[in-house]
């Protein structure tokens, strides 16, 4: 029918004549949330070792690699009597400006001690510029190992500090290769010990893909496969 076919399509969608075409996938966001992928890049957190020592050694590699120049770090020698971190130096000042941060996660990749990781928290709409700059006191995890909830942060959307911190690192391997997925290559964290690997991608996805391809091949063997 040429011109009139389109009218049929839109009418069917409207009337929902076919449930599949009339189906909506819209999620009512503040009330409903989608599960976040393992590699989600949210706001940062500064981790501590199981004994309470800070992981950050003030090396400034994160600040150096940051493409948005949003990280400001100053290191200082540890007090031999009362050290803050196990190493020689510790992060004395650590600030991230979230008005500049693009959540590329390069700081996490650069960090030699897994001190900085990204959580899956993204609902932190601040209302003034000084709130946008997260200081070390705000970034570092508390004595129970949980990230600190700041007044303007919304944790209602299913954010779970126990599961959702250091996600990127634990989803793959430090080398970024899926061959290492599931292999623990990180130190323990305060309050949680050595965390289990967080799977999901890409190894599982690759295996699922291969399985699907194999079954597809079986189904359509007569058509010459792929």
């Amino acid at each position, binding site marked *: 029918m040429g011109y009139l076919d*389109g*009218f049929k*399509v*839109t*009418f069917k*969608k*409207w009337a929902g004549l076919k449930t599949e*075409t*009339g*189906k*909506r*996938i*819209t999620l009512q966001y503040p009330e409903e949330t989608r599960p976040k992928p393992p590699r989600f890049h949210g706001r940062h957190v500064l981790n501590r070792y199981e004994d309470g020592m800070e992981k950050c050694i003030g090396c400034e590699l994160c600040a150096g690699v940051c493409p948005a120049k949003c990280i400001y770090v100053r290191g200082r020698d540890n007090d031999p009597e009362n050290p803050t971190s196990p190493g020689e130096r510790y992060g004395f000042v650590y600030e991230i400006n979230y008005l500049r941060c693009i959540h590329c996660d390069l700081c996490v990749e650069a960090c030699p001690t897994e001190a900085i990781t990204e959580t899956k928290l993204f609902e932190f709409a601040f209302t003034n510029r000084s709130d946008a700059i997260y200081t070390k006191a705000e970034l570092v995890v508390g004595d129970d190992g949980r990230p600190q909830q700041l007044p303007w942060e919304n944790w209602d959307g299913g954010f779970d500090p126990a599961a959702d911190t250091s996600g990127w690192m634990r989803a793959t391997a430090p080398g970024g290769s899926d061959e290492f997925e599931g292999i623990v290559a990180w130190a323990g964290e305060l309050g949680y010990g050595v965390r289990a690997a967080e799977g999901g991608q890409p190894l599982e996805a690759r295996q699922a893909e291969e399985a699907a391809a194999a079954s597809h091949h079986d189904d359509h063997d007569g058509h010459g496969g792929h």
Partner: protein
Amino acid sequence: MDPLLSGDIGWVEVAIVLLKVVVAFAGLMIAVMLMVWFERKLVADMQNRLGPNRAGPFGILQTMADGIKLFFKEDLQPERSDPFVFKLAPYLSLVPAFLTFTVIPIAGNFSGDNDGVVTIFGQETLMQVADPQVGILLVLAMSSVAVYGVMLAGWSSGSKYPLLGSVRASAQMVSYEAALGLSVATILLISGSLSTNVIVDIQSGFNWNLWMTGFVPFIVFLMASTAELNRPPFDLVEAEQELVGGFHTEYSSIRFAMFYLAEFLNTVTMSAVIVTLFFGGPSGPIPSGAPGWIGDFVLPFIYFFAKLFVFLFIFVWFRATLPRFRYDQLMDLGWKFLIPLALGWFLIVTTVHLATENDWNIPLVIVCCIGAVGLGALLLRMSIRAAAERRLTSEAEL
């Protein structure tokens, strides 16, 4: 002529007129509010989205929320704009949209010899704000005035995209007005009067102009009115992808809201005009035993609104389905198809009308008519083709 205004005019008559004006204005405002919501919801449904669903039940108050927001926004005015014309243009857009509705009968008993006359406070009157002698010409006049709103808005903005939008608008609206007028002329031939009241009355008893004029004027009118409304697929005036916001790019705050309001108001009004002209307006079967107020107000209004609703749906459906015309396609459709079609059909209807009046041999007349119009169509087609060839050769020479 409205029976209310014949004879002496006292304060009761004035009060009734004022009441009608207020009711029409308030009703239209509410209708527009609901129309915006309805359009957004319907388009969303057709695109597998949800549409507004936060403000009020089913998001029905979304328009109100948007309106309140627009009131509080900064009223910007470009430095190079013409201040007076810039401020005038939104009113030129909005006022005609309201005025057009004044000639639309929305209720009244049209069955039998009632002529749609109802009685309010002991006074006989018509269920339309005004029934001037010029009747339907007011609709055409107002849609011509509305062109100025769009054109002056674009021109006075002192910016290039609005100017381009308004140039398109004026060309588009002027060319489609001809087709619009010609299809209205066919109806005037049948009804023998310009008055909308008479046009509706003639159609009572399902003698709808839709089939009395042979469908073609209706199709022409529907297409031309969509173009006249600047609604998709004829929304070249706004054409977001090409012209930012078209003629209202530089408008913000309540002035923008007025353009927006006028656009949807025009949609409602034009649907009402279509219903009045082709679908018998508020006329419909009224059981003889029904009390006066049901036959005068309730049933006719339900008939009118049901018909109106169908066209509101169709306009939204157009928008959800059809992609925008290219500018040359728009002009081709208007000048080379709609106007000749409306004109040819007008000639056929005129001749048949004349033949029935004078008892001529009707089948012979129809055959002659179709032959003449067919010959005309052939000549037109040949001339269009010749012109296209000439253009191609002159382009090749260049």
